[in-house]
């Protein structure tokens, strides 16, 4: 480890960045796999079922007691699912627009993964010069919004490229959904940044880290509600899963997709969910900070503690995402747009105004 110190700062930075990217990528992918499992399990429990409990790899029988317990919880199911997706036939229908058909899944996944780059998932691992964020951008949130809205193009493109009616309808709905919610979402965070006074996500966390009462969710509850609802719409989750809506559009935008290309859409959806949860944790729940405060980590142990704290908060939000799926029926097309345009945008604007007045009064 000492030899790292003799490298020049740029090389060090590149080296650390690559390591962080790799680790973040692997962790996010694992999270995606297990988010799917949690989704299946929680859904099953809510529907009075048991959920996946059969996948048994050969080594499970050598683990006494814990092996069967893991099998019951379906811990090995994601591996089986992943393998299945790899081995399935990749079928491209003859009538699709080939280039876009191949491009669409990639365009859905990449933005979802790129969002993770600006999220501070931990303080430091002892060295203050090396914060636990892949790209410490000064305009972190602008970058996020720019990238996230690209994700919709993947869906729209999939709808167009499939050259068949259900995916097309799904694509259209996705467009409508995006323009209705992106604005409200953007406006809801404006209030947060007005309070913090910085667009850097690291600074947002720093502002909230004192203790639980400094969390933005208590200072800007309305902004949080708007952001939460918009995040559901952004990630195409129920009650706003109009582009997919399997009960009316078969599978929506991914009806014509199979095998790994379908898996990429699936992955994109869950990666977007994880990114949205991470974003909400950063903006509203104090990021990596413990609820009782305590500033940046000075040691390795505390640094890992911060990362785990972040992951825990994210997990809770993911469960909320999954739970809400079974709470509310799907919104109608027009209801969705009415909610976006005529409720949330005025509300977000009012929130900005109130926050501005409040801040002005305080600074006097």
């Amino acid at each position, binding site marked *: 480890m000492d030899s790292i110190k003799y490298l020049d700062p740029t090389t060090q930075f590149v080296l650390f960045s690559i390591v962080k990217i790799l680790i973040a990528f692997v962790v996010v992918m694992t999270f995606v796999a297990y988010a799917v499992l949690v989704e299946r399990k*929680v859904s*099953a*429990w*809510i*529907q*009075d*079922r*048991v959920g996946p*409990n059969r996948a048994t790899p050969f080594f499970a029988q050598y683990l006494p007691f814990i092996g069967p317990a893991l099998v019951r919880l379906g811990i090995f199911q994601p591996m089986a699912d992943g393998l299945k997706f790899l081995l399935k036939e990749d079928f491209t229908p003859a009538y699709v627009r080939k280039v876009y058909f191949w491009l669409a899944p990639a365009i859905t996944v990449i933005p979802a993964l790129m969002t993770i780059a600006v999220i501070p998932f931990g303080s430091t691992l002892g060295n203050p010069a090396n914060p636990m964020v892949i790209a410490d951008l000064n305009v972190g949130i602008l970058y996020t919004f720019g990238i996230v809205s690209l994700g919709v193009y993947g869906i729209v493109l999939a709808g167009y490229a499939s050259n068949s009616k259900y995916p097309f309808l799904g694509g259209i709905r996705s467009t409508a959904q995006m323009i209705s919610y992106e604005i409200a979402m953007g406006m809801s965070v404006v209030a947060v940044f007005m309070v913090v006074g910085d667009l850097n996500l690291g600074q947002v966390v720093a502002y909230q880290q004192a203790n639980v009462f400094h969390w933005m969710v208590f200072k800007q509850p309305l902004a949080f509600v708007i952001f939460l609802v918009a995040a559901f719409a952004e990630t195409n989750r129920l009650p706003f899963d109009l582009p997919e809506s399997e009960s009316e559009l078969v599978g929506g935008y991914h009806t014509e997709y199979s095998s790994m290309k379908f898996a990429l859409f699936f992955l994109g959806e869950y990666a977007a969910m994880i990114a949205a949860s991470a974003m909400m944790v950063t903006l509203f729940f104090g990021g990596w900070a413990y609820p009782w405060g305590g500033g940046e980590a000075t040691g390795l142990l505390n640094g890992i503690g911060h990362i785990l704290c972040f992951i825990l908060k994210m997990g809770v939000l993911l469960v909320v995402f999954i*739970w809400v799926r*079974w*709470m*509310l029926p799907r919104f109608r097309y027009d209801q969705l747009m009415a909610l976006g345009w005529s409720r949330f945008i005025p509300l977000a604007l009012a929130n900005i105004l109130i926050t501005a007045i409040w801040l002005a009064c305080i600074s006097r």
Partner: protein
Amino acid sequence: MTKVVERKPLSALERTYLPTLASGLKVTWKHFKKTVFEGKPATMEYPEERWVVPEGYRGAPYLVKDQEGHTKCVSCQLCEFVCPPKAIKITPPGPEGQVADRTNAEKMPQEFEINMLRCIFCGFCQEVCPEEAIFLQRDYSLTGESREEMIYNKEKLLKLGGVHGGIQKWKHKLEEAKEQEEFPVAKI
């Protein structure tokens, strides 16, 4: 005739969707609690747990033995004839073949096969059997790894069918015959 469903406009509270959210939370939590904490899912873990079907359930047809453990089937081939999907195939013993291993019968089948993949569990074989040798029993899930495995032979059918103690045709016939003899005297 059209029925007009009255759609009341939502109240201001309802338009916030909060009451819906609350009731949704209540319902989902109730079911979650029931499955996870009380361990009472509505489903059954199939191959290990199975439904116990009631007596008289019409499942797979099996051959039965009489109370002395003898083959009841006399190879009359009525079931083979009546079987709608032609699932039953009987090989009779022929003139020089095996004789029945019980009294009151001349012969028994050399081979008796039921293709369980063809069988539709209609119960005609049970209905038509003059010897009460075949019964639809309570097995409802038959599985195998090949088509050949799903053709059940005589040995397997007799083993699965077991002894049908309740219905003993020849014993009852004997009693009936005895009753016939003393009929006018005994009844009065």
